[in-house]
C-alpha cells in the first residue's frame, strides 16, 4: 500500500477511536514509561501525524480529520511532558477520565506554579487576598499576622498544600522570635 494512503487510513482510524484513546495511547507509549520516552514518542508521532505532512496530496475533506487528531496528540503531550501534570492525569485516568478538562488542568498547573513561586499558590480570589497579606507578613517577619492570614486563606482552600507548608514556617518563625525575645530580655536585665 502507498505509505501516504496507509498514514491517512491510520489517522482516520485514530479519529474514529479518539474518545476511547487516552493520552498514552495517543502518543503510543506505556503508562509507566520513563519521561524521555514521552519526549521521543512525541517527536516521532508529531513528525508523522502533523497535518502539514499528513495532508500532502490528501483530499480537502481529510483536513478536519487530520487537524482533530493532531490537536489531540498535542494535548496529550502538553500534559505528559510535565511530570506534575502527568501525575495528576494518572490519578484522573484511574477514575476513568481520559482527558484533562480545563478545571483539572488548572489545579495541576497552579500546583506546579506554586512550587516555583509562592505568590501563585492561591487558587481562589478571597484566599488570594489573605495569602498576599500572609506573604507580606512573612517578609516583614510579622509571624503572628502571617499565621493568622494563612489560616484565613485556608478557610477558603483547606486542601492547599503550599498553605499548609507555609503555616508551619510561620509557626516556626513565631517560636524563633519568642526565643530571641527571651534572650534579648535576659541581656537587658544583666545590664
Amino acid at each position, binding site marked *: 500500500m502507498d505509505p501516504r494512503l496507509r498514514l491517512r487510513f491510520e489517522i482516520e482510524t485514530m479519529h474514529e477511536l479518539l474518545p476511547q484513546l487516552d493520552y498514552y495511547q495517543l502518543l503510543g507509549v506505556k503508562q509507566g514509561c520513563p519521561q524521555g520516552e514521552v519526549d521521543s514518542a512525541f517527536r516521532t508521532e508529531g513528525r508523522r501525524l502533523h497535518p502539514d505532512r499528513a495532508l*500532502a496530496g490528501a483530499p480537502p475533506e481529510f483536513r478536519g480529520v487530520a*487537524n482533530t487528531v*493532531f490537536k489531540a496528540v498535542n494535548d496529550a*503531550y502538553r500534559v505528559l511532558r510535565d511530570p506534575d501534570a502527568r501525575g495528576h492525569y494518572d490519578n484522573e485516568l484511574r477514575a476513568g477520565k481520559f482527558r484533562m478538562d480545563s478545571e483539572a488542568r488548572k489545579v495541576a498547573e497552579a500546583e506546579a506554579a506554586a512550587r516555583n513561586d509562592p505568590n501563585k499558590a492561591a487558587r481562589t480570589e478571597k484566599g488570594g487576598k489573605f495569602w498576599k497579606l500572609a506573604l507580606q507578613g512573612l517578609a516583614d517577619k510579622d509571624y503572628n499576622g502571617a499565621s493568622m492570614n494563612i489560616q484565613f486563606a485556608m478557610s477558603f482552600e483547606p486542601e492547599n498544600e503550599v498553605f499548609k507548608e507555609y503555616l508551619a514556617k510561620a509557626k516556626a518563625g513565631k517560636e524563633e522570635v519568642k526565643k530571641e525575645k527571651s534572650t534579648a530580655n535576659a541581656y537587658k536585665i544583666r545590664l
Partner: protein
Amino acid sequence: MGVAVGIDLGTSNSCVAAVRDGEVVVFADQEGRRTQPSVVAFGYGKSAVVGWKARRQLMYAPESTVVSAKRLIGRRAGSEEVQKMKAQSAFGITEGEGGNVQIRVQGKLFSPTEISAHVLVHMKRIAEQALGEPVEKAVITVPAYFNDNQRQATRDAATMAGLECLRILNEPTAAALAYGFKQGKRQHVAVYDLGGGTFDISILRIDDDFFEVVATAGDTFLGGDDFDYLAADEFLRLFCSQNGLDLAENRTVRMKLREAAERAKVALCSGDEVEVTVPALYRSPDGKEYDFATTLDRFTYAQWVLPLVQRTLDVCEDALKAANMSPRQIDHALLVGGMTRFPLVRDSVGEFFGKPANASLNPDEVVAVGAAIQAYNLTNDSAGESSVLLDVTPQSLGIRTVGGFCEILIPRNTAIPTESAKVFHTAFDAQTEVRISAYQGESRLSDDNELLGEFVLEGLPPRPRGQIKVRVTFEIDNDGIVHVRALDNANGAEQAIRIEARSGAAPEELRSARFDDIEF
C-alpha cells in the same frame, strides 16, 4: 498552476522569495534590489506608488506617504501604541467606525490592511516579473508576538491583494527553518529578531527535521523605528537649541530628522563617526532657512539607545524563563532583522547568551527564505519528507468572567493547533442569551488585555437558571488565528462563530478590492 512564494511583510522593508529547482531564490526588482521599502505614497497623479519610489517621496512629502503601517494593523485606535504612532507620524491617523484605525492621506481614508495589501501587491508583481508566471499563493510572515487581531488583519490583506494565504508563519520560526540545522542531533536555538517595528525572541528545540517552538515572547512595538525616533528627538533638541527655535510640534521637521537618524544609524554600523546634515531642514515664516549639521559618534549613539537594547534582553529573559532554560543551554543564537547589524545589538546578544551570535545568513532576507521553504513544503505533494514546524501561541487566550477577571482557557506557549472547551451555564431564569468576550494577554484583569471580540449565543430555550448548558470550544489554528464554535446542548446544533477581527473590511469587500491604479 501559479507559483507559491514566501513574503516577509516587514515594518520597514519587505522581501519575496520562492523555491525554484530545489533552490531558494530571492526576487530582485529591475534595478537588482532584493528588498523593498514597505512604504506607500499617494499624491501626484492619481496612482499610488509602493517601494523605493514611494520612499523617495518621504523626504519631500511625508504627509502623503504612509510608512510603518504594520505598526497599526489589527490595533484599536484608542490603544497606547496607536496614540504613540499618531504623535510621530506626518500622515493622518484617525478613528473610524467601531474603533478601527484609519489612515487619512489627501482627504482619502485607508485601513492599515489596505496599505499592507498595496505592499503585498507590489511584492507579488516583483515575483511575477522575475518568474514570468502568475503568483497566486503565499506564506506570509508576521512577528511571533502578533495577536489574533493582527494575524487576521494580515490574512485579510493577502486576500485583498489577490493572494491565497497558505499560512501565517512566525518570523523567528521562518528564520530557523532557513538556517536548517539538519544535523541529526538535538539542538536548542534562540532566534533574536529585531526588525523595523517589532521584536521577537523564540526558543526552538530542533531535532533533525522537527522544529518545535518551546517558548516565544516579544514586543510588537519595539524596533528600529524606535531607535530612529529616539535619535531624531535628540537631533531636534540640538537643532532647536542651536537656533533658538521651538519645533516640537512640527511633524515635517521630525520626519526629515527621522530619515537622517536612520541614515546615521546605518553609517554607524560600520563607521565610528558620521556627519549628519539636513540642508534646509526648516524654513521659518519670515523666509529664513535653517540647515542642520552635527557629528555623531558611535559611543554617543550607543548611550542613547542602550535602554531599548536592554528592553529586548528583558524579553529574552522572560522567554527563557517560560522555556525553563538558562542562556548557557542555548546552542545557537541567531540574529534576524536589519537592526541586528548594529554592533551594540550584536555584542549585547552574544554577551547575554555567552556565545557569539550567528548572523551568517542575510538578516534582511532570511525570513523570506524560510517562508519560501514553507510555501514549497505546503504546496508540494511529495513533501512528505519535508521539515515539520510546530509553533506555539504567543499570548494566553481567555474570557471575561464576573468582576472583570480574565479566565485563561489556552495559556501562552501552548503548541498549535490546539483547542479548549468550556461549558457555560445560564445565570438567570429564562435567560435566552449568553454573551462571551474573548481576550488575549497575560493580565488577570480582562480590561488590561486585548479584546479579540464579543459574541452572543442566542435563541436559548427559556428555562430555570443553570439548566441550560452551552459548550463553547476555542480553537487556535496553524496560523495562530482563533476560532470559536458553540454546541448548544438543548438543540444539539453546532454553530461556528467567527471572532471578527478589526481590520474593518467584510470578506466581500476584501475580494473586490482593486489595485490597478498602483504604478509599477
